[in-house]
């Protein structure tokens, strides 16, 4: 499996991380090295093995559909980069 600059650019777009032009080659190489490491998995015989999502195969607990949390909007918004009238502010999305 080879990975190229264009693949890294696509991943960076998916992950919403701006790449540093100066280090793209280095990033590509190091990710190729990590993928070479994980490619060792391909040799494992996993025919019929159920994928393991949880160490003790536990499932999500359900709780009663009752209001248990109080409103913390003020505290949460106090640490936000930008808010106004109880709303989180972001750059304009629609013109």
């Amino acid at each position: 499996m080879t990975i190229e600059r264009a693949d890294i650019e696509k991943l960076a777009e998916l992950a919403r991380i701006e790449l540093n032009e100066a280090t793209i080659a280095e990033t590509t190489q190091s990710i190729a090295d990590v993928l070479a490491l994980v490619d060792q998995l391909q040799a494992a015989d996993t025919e019929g093995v159920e994928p393991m999502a949880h160490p003790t195969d536990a499932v999500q607990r359900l709780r009663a559909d009752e209001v248990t949390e109080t409103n913390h909007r003020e505290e949460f918004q106090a640490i936000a980069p930008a808010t106004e009238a109880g709303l989180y502010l972001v750059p304009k999305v629609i013109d």
Partner: protein
Amino acid sequence: MNNSITNQKALHDKTIAEILAGLNAGEFTSVEITQHFLDRIKQLDGTYNSYITVNEASALAQAEAADKRRAEGDVPALCGVPIAHKDIFCTNGVRTSCGSKMLDNFVPPYDATVVENFANAGAVVLGKTNMDQFAMGSSNETSFYGPVKNPWDTNTVPGGSSGGSAAAVAAHLTPGATATDTGGSIRQPAALCGITGLKPTYGRVSRWGMIAFASSLDQGGPMARTAEDCALMLNVMASFDPKDSTSIDREVPNYTANLNQPLAGLKVGIPREYFKEGLNPGTEQAVRDALTELEKQGATLISISLPHTKLAVPAYYVIAPAEASANLSRFDGVRYGHRCDDPKDLRDMYMRTRAEGFGDEVKRRILVGAYCLSAGYYDAYYRKAQQVRRLIKQDFVDAFEQVDVIMGPTSPSPAFEFGAKGDDPVAMYLEDIYTIATNLAGLPGMSVPCGLVDDKPVGLQIIGNYFDESRMLNVAHQFQQATHWHQQTPVGIASEAKDTEGAE
């Protein structure tokens, strides 16, 4: 010189058990010992960089409250004992950075369950310890706040990601600290700093308010100088938490209850795969000597095989980055944490906020995770890794049919110098070759000091069956009753009492 004074252990050299005894006997107050540690941190931590934040005012207020409670006869388990929290646990009103620029300005409006548990037990929080950024690293070199120095040799790394907690305990800048372990982040730094650390069974300690890296692997646990102290801390730290959907609803035993059980009849599995190439000969010798000591105490050593060991690191580097890429998508500059200056639109804000807020290793893992989860590759990587994970777990399940605990080295070699693994992520990843499999299986693991190689500590790893922390602590405690490795301290750290003993 007056022997009655010099033979007394300095406050910072006391274990948690000794501090509790001293507080109970009225030898000193919580305010006194807290002030002592705060002074010591101020004096020495410029060298080690083990703390990101020190809570002088709130620590003294908590100590005062603890002294008052004690005077009134209300004495919870760790009343007045100073500890430190890894900076991954959210602390109400105290900056929680996770070692990153992204959260450099993040002051949570709530406490993690673990933090709450220690507060309810009357513990005093000295501060928040340094760590690899978002717990991604094995050397503490990825911290936004600069690397932590190993107190045994300040040219070497303390291990990671809980390197700040480990170094603070080793330098006697706190008697105990909380930590987290996703692939070895408690055990490897414990080994490299010559202290005792325990990663409990997955689900034993609440993850609520503990900043998520890889949710199916992350687990909090204690670090201290002795197994007994780890037991005292785990008594408080472990709990069933309805706020953590993966928390296990199971009674928390008293972890100190079995410490004194003799080891006669204990069956110890020795995985052949943990003693192969790549293991430092000095480390191997120290571990083998430790096993001989346990044999002397009546344990039986049984050679076992964990045939899928080789696949643990590759499976981990699919699963952990995949989960990290999902978990870290929440850092978008909207609700808290870093936001880039003057974003021109929403996309630009996401792209630059994340480029600026995350370090190289975090970005690398997010990108690897995005790759493994992307369309067309999911089956080949993520599904395959989850299948291998079950094979790895089955290896352990089979082994525990015939043994009580499994032992081997914690890490392949003692502490290495800064920059030694350079820019080679794969070399760094292999640091956790003996610890990662237990996270994949969800099993508890421990590291206990068992020797020195070139004056650097070596860790013995003890892997237990699910929820068998009590037995592991018993084994570790019995080992520490018969050996002195856990009492070794870096040059200049131990109190001078020992050196001057008997003089004049």
